[in-house]
């Protein structure tokens, strides 16, 4: 029996359910499932321009596994482009990051719910933006 897959932490799910090609003559030839963790890998590496090693740490997997997820994501997107397939976002082996942060100034730990846009310490007297994501 293969070893169980470790859940990949992701910060937020993609904001779309899929992408569809348009302007192609022949009808769409099927779809490709893009996993949440693959979306996250593309986002971290190519949108946030993070180094693979840092991105891997954030997702809770090894650097090599991150590279594999990223590679598979790129191949899927390329395949969808070339073969005019739809891209559908599916859950995969993802786990939502609990988003616990630590303030390096006053050592308090806290979460940042989606309703708060600023990434800084919740104490007004501190308000430090020197915060760091922790695995809790």
């Amino acid at each position, binding site marked *: 029996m293969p070893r169980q897959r470790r859940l990949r932490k992701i910060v937020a799910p993609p904001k779309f359910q899929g992408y569809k090609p348009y302007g192609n003559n022949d009808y769409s030839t099927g779809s490709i499932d893009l996993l949440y963790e693959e979306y996250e890998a593309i986002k971290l590496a190519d949108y946030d321009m993070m180094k693979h090693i840092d991105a891997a740490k954030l997702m809770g997997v090894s650097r090599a596994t991150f590279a594999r997820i990223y590679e598979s994501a790129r191949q899927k997107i390329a395949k969808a482009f070339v073969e005019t397939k739809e891209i559908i976002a599916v859950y995969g082996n993802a786990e939502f990051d*609990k988003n616990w942060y630590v303030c390096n100034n*006053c*050592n*308090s*730990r*806290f*979460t*940042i*719910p*989606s*309703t*708060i846009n600023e990434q800084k310490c*919740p*104490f*007004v*007297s*501190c308000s430090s933006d020197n915060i760091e994501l922790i695995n809790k």
Partner: protein
Amino acid sequence: MKTVITSSGKTTDSDFDKRFGRADFFCVFDNETNETSFIENIHKDSSNAAGTKAAEVMVELGVSKVISGDFGPKAKTMLEKFDIQMVIIQGDGVKINDLIKKLS
């Protein structure tokens, strides 16, 4: 914006309570009016799910931030669901006063 601080007494000189669900009192601090009020935690001796019940109280009060020593798994999921910010403070001898000062 209302903030709840878990407290072991009902005055601002009281010690900060590190438990969430089983804290003695909840200190509600409103940073717009600078008013504080204390609410007794009626679920502190309940045999189970004190955290969930306390989280329900938070939702009813309409607070946006909760400061405590730690949160149990049930309370965590509940507070997360209602977009309430959780803040964990560690260290002993913290008074409610100190925290209010830091918030205003």
